[in-house]
């Protein structure tokens, strides 16, 4: 007994619904990416026991983990302790380091890092808790997911880095868990950084 006059608006309604669900085509980026100079460092422990309170100091030039006793020298560029990152300058060390957090930036295609505008770890910048790479979810390099307790690097965050000796590099944090699992879970061990970077030894800002 359903009459035609009821069917017309019903059909129209479903047409509207279906058309509103139509999705745009998603285009993935293409083009060659030179990976020649990219260095990958896996599972850098960053106070991995969670109790020592010590940073792990890294020198980019030769991908070396610098011993703790050299922490007050210009022998390191970037240091990790849990989610906190320090750069060798200002409050953190005697170097000429600095960092710039670049957002929505494709590490693969970033050819030049800025020459100026680098932030230095200091107590004078309280809005970002004093560090060139701020801590806190959504503020610096990571997002914290309270429902899964997982720390994940923010997609598109690249650190433009000035090293302790005034050279430039681009650094990307890829993972915070041991073995760099693609989808970390609560059973994975945290406080292990996996990073990739391009270091420019000639003092220019070219990081391609």
């Amino acid at each position, binding site marked *: 007994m359903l009459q035609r006059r009821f069917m017309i608006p019903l059909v129209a309604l479903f047409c509207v619904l279906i058309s509103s669900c139509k999705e745009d085509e*998603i285009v993935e980026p293409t083009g060659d990416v030179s990976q020649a100079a990219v260095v990958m460092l896996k599972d850098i422990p960053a106070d991995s026991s969670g109790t020592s309170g010590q940073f792990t100091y890294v020198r980019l030039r030769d991908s070396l983990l610098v011993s703790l006793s050299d922490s007050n020298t210009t022998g390191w560029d970037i240091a990790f302790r849990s989610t906190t990152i320090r750069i060798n300058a200002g409050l953190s060390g005697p170097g000429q380091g600095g960092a710039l957090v670049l957002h929505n930036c494709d590490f693969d295609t970033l050819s030049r890092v800025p020459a100026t505008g680098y932030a230095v770890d200091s107590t004078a910048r309280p809005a970002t808790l004093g560090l060139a790479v701020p801590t806190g979810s959504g503020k610096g390099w990571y997002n914290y997911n309270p429902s899964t307790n997982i720390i994940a690097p923010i997609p598109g965050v690249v650190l433009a880095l000035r090293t302790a000796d005034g050279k430039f590099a681009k650094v990307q944090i890829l993972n915070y868990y041991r073995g760099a699992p693609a*989808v970390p879970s609560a059973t994975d061990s945290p406080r292990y950084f996996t990073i990739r970077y391009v270091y420019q030894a000639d003092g220019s800002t070219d990081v391609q």
Partner: protein
Amino acid sequence: MIEISYHRPTAHVSRWRFVAILSVAALCSAHLSAQSTGSVRGFVRGSDGSTIMDALVTLTGTDHRGSTDKDGVFFLAGVQTGTYTLAVRMPGYQPSNQTCSVVAGDTADVAIVLTDSRIEMQPVVVTGTRTERPYTTSPVRTNLIAREEMNRAAARDLRDVLEEQTGLAIVHDHGAGIQVQGLDPAYTLILIDGEPVVGRTAGTLELSRIAITDVERVEVVKGPSSSLYGADALAGVVNIITEEPRTGTDGLGVNLQSRYGSYRTLDLSARLRYSGSDVGASIAFNRKSSAGYDLTPASISPTAPPTTDYTISPKILVQLSPFTSLSVHGRVFVGRQESDLDLEEGGTLTRMTELSRTNDWSVASKIEHSLNASTTFKGKVYVMSYNSDYSLRAASSGALHSTDPFEQTYMKAEAQVDAVLTAQHLFTAGAGYVREAVEAVRIAEGVHRATSAIAFAQHEWIPTEALDVVASIRFDSHSDYAERLSPKASVLLSPLSWLKVRLSAGSGFKAPTFQQLYLDFTNPAVGYSVFGSTGVIDKLANLQAGGQVQQLLVDPSKLSLIRPESSLSFNCGVDVAPAEMILLRVNAFRTSLKDMIETAPVAVKTNGQSVFTYFNLNRVSTQGLETELTFKPGAGMSVHFGYQYVEAIDRDVLEAVRAGRISKRGSTGRLRAVQESEYGGLFNRSSHSGTFKVHYDNPGLGLSASCRCLVRGRYGFSDVNGNTILDDESEYAPGYALWNLSVSQRLPGRVTLQCGIENMLDKTQPQFDPSLAGRRLFCAVSVEY
């Protein structure tokens, strides 16, 4: 013009009045134009032949109105000649509209028979307008869940009842709550007999806390109702209507019910009813227990711990006079959950016993007095207290490890007047005062008290049979957050007998939580602080005086009272009944929420950590469509199909996506901006959900069967790719369908047997939804005397 209206005449007086009126009327008609006016006299009785006193009689389109006397007689004089519609209204009876012709100098005699609305079993709803209205013609769209439906599903508590409704998704966050029109459980107000139930954890009011032993029906109004109920009635209102004790001569009545099923779930319910001539009383008792279940046997803590809940609700109704009644409803709930877990502290595991205890009680007293046939006064005093404690003890020694007591008290005094001004104009107004107190560990000084004053008014205008307009507005003034004015307007259009269109626009609000208002917390390990909005200025000043503040990020003098989260909503519903056996109900909705409360830093401490407080920041909008189709082909069969589509988006996130400010790694591993089409909105919402139900009733055999299917489409579970938003296939939990079956058979001796299977296909998803228990069988017996 002469208007006659008299109230509750005694037999003695009424005769005299009647005579007096007749003489006055005669004089008047003689005095006025004898050629152009006449009178209407009538007799109103019920369909059982009883005379009906105090029925309201109105000549539509004129100022003539009156009410019937003890003998059911009314008289309207000085009426211009012509043909009129005589409208007769009496609570408890169906409205009558009858044509009558007035002849100059003559008296038209009419006889009116009113049909008892209870005999007709016309369902009544109360939530949408705070006054009783027939379900089918309520101007505010209401979903009604009848007792019959709860029995059919062998529902044990409110969670079971709401779970099978189209457009109500059960979600779990510190308890089972309902999502209405895409909004979280915190945005829906739960009422028992019109009074708010308090005691939420993280915004969720645990639905299984509410037993349904003496529940007559559940009404759900979707869309904001803050204009009548104030705070938290933003996404909707669920009003649980319990059965009121009756006065009359029924004597005693007893109901006994028990249900046993998988996971050793046992329900025992009893109801005792007494009905005297002026006093009615009832008491309902429910005990509910379950051994719980474990979907993850590898871990020590069970998925659902064993629980035992008790509910007792006594009620009394006293008819103080034919026009005055007093009712008192009480309710006591005691709940307990206990299980073991392994607590990790400093790298070592300790076996702990986790005990969660919840108690609440409430007393609602109401006095209802009919001032006259058209005006009713209701005075209410309501008190509810909720307390909970969550404790951990070492399983071996019993030593207390931690405890988290919480206590909340809510007291309300309220007066309401309902007036039928004319048959076209109905008016309701009320005012009240609320005192709340909360006691908890992390609250400043451990305890906080707040007060609020409320006033509301509603006007309903029914100019024609085809149009019903109702507008309401409420003012809430609270001591701890900004005051709030909530308006709402609804229109019911009935242009054709088979078509009803309901439109409504309204504003709702959600009160800030106790945490957002009163929290006083400093993390002992890390050193950051979070202060509720009421105390943040003083707390900051204290920190500054103590030299602990390195820099202020916000000028404290600029911090103002937090505003409640507020919304603007539109609903458009259409009911189409092309044939007796078919009813199609469609409702489209859209809600824009603003001022959602989030934390943000206000200062940096000398230890480098931040001081946070709460601000009105985010904006969210939801929209969707709900469809219900009921088909009754006859022979006791009934088929119901329901579907809901909903979109819920964070508007700030959407703006960021549109501006290309949020990135992800695409399928090739390369970085790119998230596309708008990939943004899936808020987590934990199924865009598509539905219900499919088939019922069969054979009253002759006493047999009834029902098969129900609940479908929940895929929903965003959690961020995986690090950008915090729902934008990737890997971030969805798969959808599922649950099939429930139940069969009941009435036996001689007023005994009914019922058996059923819930979740027939044994669907579980422990990694996404631990509350999804596996296949369950049950058997139930009920006896009624």
